[in-house]
C-alpha cells in the first residue's frame, strides 16, 4: 500500500537566488511522479529538520525538473537554500486542487500576485500563454515590498513586451530612482483591462491583500463565482489527516489550496479563523 506520509528521495538539480531571501530550487522528478496541475504544491522534507509545503512554480509541461520558488522563512527553508547541486532531500506530492484555467477560457483572465504569491501563479501563466488564443485579455497585477523584491521581473516584462499580457506593478516603498507605482495592489485593479462580466480572477498573496482585492473586485461588478484564491495555512501532512490547515470545513491542503471564493468567503473574512 502507498503510504501518503512517506517521502521519496529526490536529487537537487539547481539552487538559484531570485531576489533577496527568495530562491528557486529545481528537483529531478521521481520516476512515478504524476503530472502536476498549475497551483498544486509539494511537501519538501529536510531530514532532521522537517517539512514545508511549497507550490510548484515551474512549467507543467517541463517533465525534466520540478521547480519551486521559496521564501526563506524558517528552519526548513533556510536549510533548503543551503543545499548544493546533487544533494538529496525528501519529496511528497503533488497535492491539492489547482487553478481552474479551463473555466476561464473564452473570457478575460486577471491574475493578482502579492510577493511570493506569484510563485503558484506562474504555472498558470505558462499554461495560459501556451494556449494564448483560448483567452481574451490577460492581465497580471503584482505587488512587492520594494522594486528589488519583484519576482520573475525580466520574464514577466518579456511577456508584456511581446504583447502576450498586460503587466502592472506596484511596490510598498521605493527609492527615488523608481519610476513605477508605490501603493497597494488594489489600486491597480480599476485600471486593469478586463470585462467584469467575462473575467476569471486568480489571486495569491497575503490574506489581507486577498480580502481587500475581493471587496474591490466585487465593487467593480465581478461575481464571486469568478474569483479563485490560493490560500496558505499550516500544511503538515498535506492529505487532510493532521488537522492544522483547516479553514472552517475546508482542509486547505486537500480541498485547496485553490478555492472558489464561495467556499471560503465567510471564513476568510473572519479574523483569526
Amino acid at each position: 500500500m502507498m503510504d501518503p506520509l512517506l517521502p521519496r528521495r529526490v536529487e537537487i538539480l539547481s539552487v538559484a537566488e531570485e531576489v533577496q531571501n527568495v530562491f528557486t530550487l529545481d528537483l529531478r522528478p521521481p520516476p512515478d511522479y504524476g503530472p502536476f496541475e498549475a497551483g498544486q504544491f509539494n511537501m519538501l522534507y529536510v531530514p532532521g529538520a522537517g517539512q514545508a509545503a511549497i507550490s510548484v512554480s515551474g512549467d507543467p509541461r517541463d517533465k525534466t525538473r520540478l521547480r519551486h520558488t521559496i521564501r526563506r522563512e524558517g528552519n526548513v527553508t533556510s536549510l533548503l537554500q543551503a543545499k548544493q547541486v546533487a544533494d538529496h532531500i525528501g519529496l511528497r506530492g503533488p497535492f491539492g486542487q489547482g487553478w481552474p484555467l479551463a473555466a476561464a477560457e473564452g473570457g478575460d483572465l486577471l491574475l493578482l500576485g502579492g510577493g511570493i504569491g506569484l510563485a503558484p501563479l506562474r504555472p498558470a501563466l505558462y499554461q495560459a500563454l501556451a494556449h494564448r488564443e483560448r483567452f481574451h485579455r490577460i492581465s497580471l497585477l503584482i505587488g512587492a515590498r520594494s522594486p528589488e523584491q519583484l519576482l520573475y521581473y525580466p520574464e514577466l516584462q518579456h511577456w508584456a513586451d511581446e504583447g502576450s499580457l498586460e503587466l502592472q506593478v506596484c511596490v510598498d516603498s521605493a527609492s527615488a530612482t523608481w519610476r513605477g507605482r508605490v501603493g497597494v495592489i488594489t489600486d491597480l485593479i480599476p485600471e486593469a483591462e478586463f470585462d467584469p462580466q467575462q473575467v476569471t480572477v486568480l489571486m495569491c498573496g497575503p490574506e489581507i491583500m486577498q480580502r481587500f482585492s475581493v471587496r474591490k473586485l466585487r465593487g467593480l461588478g465581478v461575481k464571486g463565482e469568478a474569483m479563485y484564491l490560493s490560500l496558505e495555512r499550516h500544511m503538515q501532512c498535506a492529505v487532510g489527516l493532521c488537522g492544522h490547515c483547516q479553514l472552517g470545513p475546508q482542509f486547505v491542503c486537500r480541498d485547496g489550496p485553490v478555492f472558489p471564493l464561495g467556499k471560503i468567503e465567510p471564513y476568510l473574512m473572519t479574523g483569526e479563523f
Partner: protein
Amino acid sequence: MYLWSTQQLQALIDLLRARDYDVIGPAVRDDSLHYERIDSLPVGWGDRQDAGHYQLRERADQSRFGYNLGAATWKQFLFPPRETLFRVRDGDFVNCREAPQKMAFLGVRPCELAAIALQDRVFTEDPVEPGYLARRKDLLLIAVNCSQAAPTCFCASTGDGPEVNAELPTDLVLTECEPADPYYLVEALTQRGQDLLEEVGGSQAPASARQTVDRLMDATREQLTRALDTEELPGLLLGALDHPHWDDLAQRCLACGNCTQVCPTCFCSTAEDHTDPITVEVRHNRRWDSCFTQGHSYLTGSVVHRSVRSRYRQWLTHKLASWVAQFGRSGCTGCGRCITWCPVAIDLTVETEALRAAP
C-alpha cells in the same frame, strides 16, 4: 441472545488470550480507570463525575461495568499518541511501521464505538493511513450497553447511546444485569462474534431477555440529565463566528487542551524529527496535537489563532459543525469527557446553548 455468568465472561478473556489477542480493557490504576492490556476485569468499581470533577469509588456490588468513562480512550491503541512514521538511514527513507499485535477491545461503550466508527472515516477513507488500517483491520470489538449514565453523559442527544445500535462496528454486545451478583446478556452482531459466543457457551437467554435489556436502557435514558440540541447546529455555529459569547468563553478557558486529549474523535497530530547523535539516524515521529496550542495554527513566522477565543472557537466549530461537512456527521458522540476533564468545568452543551441565543 445468550446468558453468561461472570465465569463465562472470564472464559472469553482466556480464550482470546490463548488466540494471541492482546485483550485491552478497563483497569484501575492511580485512582482512575484506564484502558490497558488485562487478564481479568476489575470488580466493584464505580465513579462520580460532573463538570470538572472525577472520582473513582468502590461499589457495594460485584459489577464489572459499574462505572462510566475515565479519561482514557480506545483511540490510543488505533492512533497512538506517539508513533514513528519512518526513519532516514544513510539518506534513504525507511518505512518502519511495524506489523501490529492483534487486539480485542473489551468493554467499549456505545459512544466509544461511534467514536471508533468516526475515526475509521478519518483514517481509512481518503486517504488511507496504513498504520491505522493495519491495527484496525483485525480488531475485535466487544461492546457493553450502559446500565447507568454519568451526569456528564449526553449520548442520547447525539444518537450514539446508551444502547449499541446494530449500525455500530462491534462483534459482541454485553448487557450487565443484577450487579449484586451479575450475569450478562450477550448478542453477536458479526459471524466472528457468533463463533466466539458459541465457543464460550452459556445458556440461551430466556424469552424475556429483550425486555430486560429494554428496561435497563430506559432506566439509563431516564438518568441522562444533560442534552445537546443538535438541530441546525452546523449552520448556526458557523454563522455565529462573531458572537460575543466567544469572548465570555475566552475569559474562562485556560487553553490547556485537556478536552482535545480526552476526546475520542479528535485526530490532530504533528510531526517532528529526532536525530540520534551517534548514528545520525533520523526518526520522523508523529504525536497527538491540540488546536489549543499556539503551534497548531503556525503560519510563516506568525500564528492564525492568536487568542484563546479563536482557539476555543476552532475546537467547538470543528467538532460540532465542520465535522458534518468533512465526515458526514458531527464529531461529538456525547461521551462527556471534555466536560469532566475541563479544569474550569466548561460544558459544551451549555456553551452551545448560549451561542444559540441572539447576541
